């Protein structure tokens, strides 16, 4: 088992380096110069050159061949990518080009908000999606099955931005039950411990803060959970249907086990593998969906922040944010791999 975990870690590392490379290249390949973006169309060539110098944009992308010809080994390696990697190794993601503050600082503030939103959405998606899938599979071709499968199909095909706007219309504008946006009402203070306001407010026993946080997160979390919920429900159903036809299910019944034990003990553990895979992949979808959801609900997470940075060609933010998302995605799928081994002994002993 430990060897297996070690192997998984080793296989994640090259992916991670590949990710830094791709993130670095993407930004450089998009036309447009951040120096011009900062200074405006009418800036003088001199000032543009000065800014490019400051930001290191005048250096070659990877390796400086001319410096090598001059015998300048340090200059040879002094490139944009190498500088980027060197900073990265110090956990320095650079400064925002526009705001001149370290990307890491903003990230620390905004990332927990996205984590909180995505995590809650995932929890909603899982605790509704999986039971719906199980019930559908065990009551195949009944009204319950049809209703939940049509429901999940609607969930899968739901445009999040539209659902978000409809939620705001109904609950914030017409019914006025919930606030339309932001993470907390003004005047509500929650002591920062984990930076996840729901958890912080619970730890500090701040019930007023907790209720306020819940009322703010409810709509975006539901909007974000819709698609994964539908996908998880459908995946659980089809996986359970496959497993329920297996011989060992008949064996379990022949032993005299009741329907519930057969379903939850013998079938579910086998059906869980594809479902766990899908949940892992949905982590990526959630982070991508967070950009839309955060924009609609003015959620102070990284989605909206990266979106703005892309428009403003704020390279360091885009790089830092994307890298973080990639790391989260790799991390989640690493956990999925570990879960595989825990669920299926055949993988563990390979």
């Amino acid at each position: 088992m430990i060897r297996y975990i070690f192997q998984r870690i080793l296989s994640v590392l090259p992916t991670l380096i590949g990710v830094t490379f791709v993130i670095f290249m993407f930004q450089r390949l998009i036309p447009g110069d951040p120096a011009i973006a900062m200074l405006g169309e009418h800036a003088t060539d001199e000032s543009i050159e000065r800014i490019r110098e400051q930001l290191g944009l005048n250096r070659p992308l990877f390796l400086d061949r001319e410096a090598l010809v001059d015998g300048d080994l340090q200059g040879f390696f002094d490139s944009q990518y190498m500088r980027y990697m060197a900073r990265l190794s110090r956990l320095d993601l650079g400064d925002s080009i526009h705001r001149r503050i370290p990307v890491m600082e903003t990230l620390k503030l905004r990332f927990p908000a996205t984590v909180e939103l995505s995590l809650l959405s995932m929890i909603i998606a899982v605790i509704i999606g999986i039971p719906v899938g199980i019930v559908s599979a065990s009551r195949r071709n009944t009204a319950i099955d049809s209703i939940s499968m049509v429901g999940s199909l609607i969930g899968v095909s739901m445009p999040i931005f539209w659902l978000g706007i409809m939620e705001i219309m109904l609950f914030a504008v017409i019914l006025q039950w919930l606030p339309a946006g932001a993470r907390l009402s003004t005047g509500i203070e929650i002591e920062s411990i984990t930076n996840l306001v729901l958890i912080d407010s619970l730890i500090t026993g701040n019930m007023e803060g907790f209720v306020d946080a819940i009322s703010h997160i409810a709509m975006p979390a539901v909007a974000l959970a819709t698609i994964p919920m539908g996908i998880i429900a459908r995946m659980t159903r089809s996986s359970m249907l496959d497993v329920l036809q297996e011989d060992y299910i008949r064996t379990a019944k022949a032993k005299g086990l009741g329907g519930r034990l057969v379903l939850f003990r013998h079938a579910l553990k086998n059906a869980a593998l594809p479902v766990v895979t899908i949940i892992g992949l949905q982590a990526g979808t959630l982070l991508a969906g967070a950009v839309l959801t955060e924009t609609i609900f003015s959620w102070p997470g990284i989605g909206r922040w990266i979106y703005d940075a892309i428009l403003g060609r704020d390279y360091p933010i885009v790089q830092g944010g994307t890298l973080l998302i990639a790391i989260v995605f790799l991390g989640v799928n690493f956990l999925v791999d570990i879960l595989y081994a825990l669920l299926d002994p055949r993988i563990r002993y390979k």
Partner: protein
Amino acid sequence: MNPLLEIRNLKTRFYTQDGVVKAVNDVSYTMDSGEILGVVGESGCGKSVHALSIMQLIPDPPGKITNGEIWFDGQDILKLNEDQMQKVRGREIAMIFQDPMTSLNPVFTVGFQIVEALLLHNDMTKGEAKDRAGELLDLVGIPGAKQRLNDYPHQFSGGMRQRAMIAMGLSCEPKLLIADEPTTALDVTIQAQIIDLVKKLQDEMGMTIMWITHDLGVVAELAHTINVMYAGSIIETGKIRNIYKQTRHPYTIGLLGSLPRLDDPPGTELVSIPGLPPDLVALPEGCPFAARCGYRIEHCINERPTLVEIDGQDHSVACWRWEEIAGIGTK
């Protein structure tokens, strides 16, 4: 003495899109305590479905038992509800299945799967159940039984898995063990070992066993009585000696004739039964075997023969011409 199992007019149907599949048609027979019954027939003749009907494990939908009574140990188990039936399964009647590779759950240890059955039906602690599971694996001849309890099915060979299945089936000392082609998926040497094992266990425990197979050789070694099934019906039944020595039904003759024999001279051609079994959705009105039968007469096509007992011989046959066919036997 009352028989342990008495089946009366059992009918099982599958309601599919192509029509109603008449999988089991009016099957009636009895089994005495301590008896080994061989149920023989080709694929799709309803032998497995009839066994699953006894366990009430027919997938429903599309399957349904539409008629009949199954008297087991003094009660009609078809009248039991699901909760009551769960107490019969595993404890009173246990069943082992054809493919040991897929019949054990891959994500639980072999030990857990045996312990689970023990805990379900017996009043014992986990520790006691674990000890008992070790004894059972030892009984079915798995070396180092105690250590192997913690193994997963994929760490067992095919023969060992079937032994583990048998251990699981025996765990609660059922009155009746139904073995549905338990050796079909195994190679011949392992088959022989499993058959020896079952014989030995039957001698020691005096269990009643129903052995379902298409392999007449296996049945000849094990069984006391035989039911030959064709197209969902029993067409010949009786003591094993009668069936083999005084075969009455043309289908049974065909089955026995299609077995290769060691004492055949080299170059002897294997006999096979021409044609295919009838479509169970559209069973013919007359004898279901008529279309393939060399002894067919007009009457066979128009009217279906029922099982007739041959006087005083513990031998019944469903054929209009059994008297003429009398005593042909095998070659």
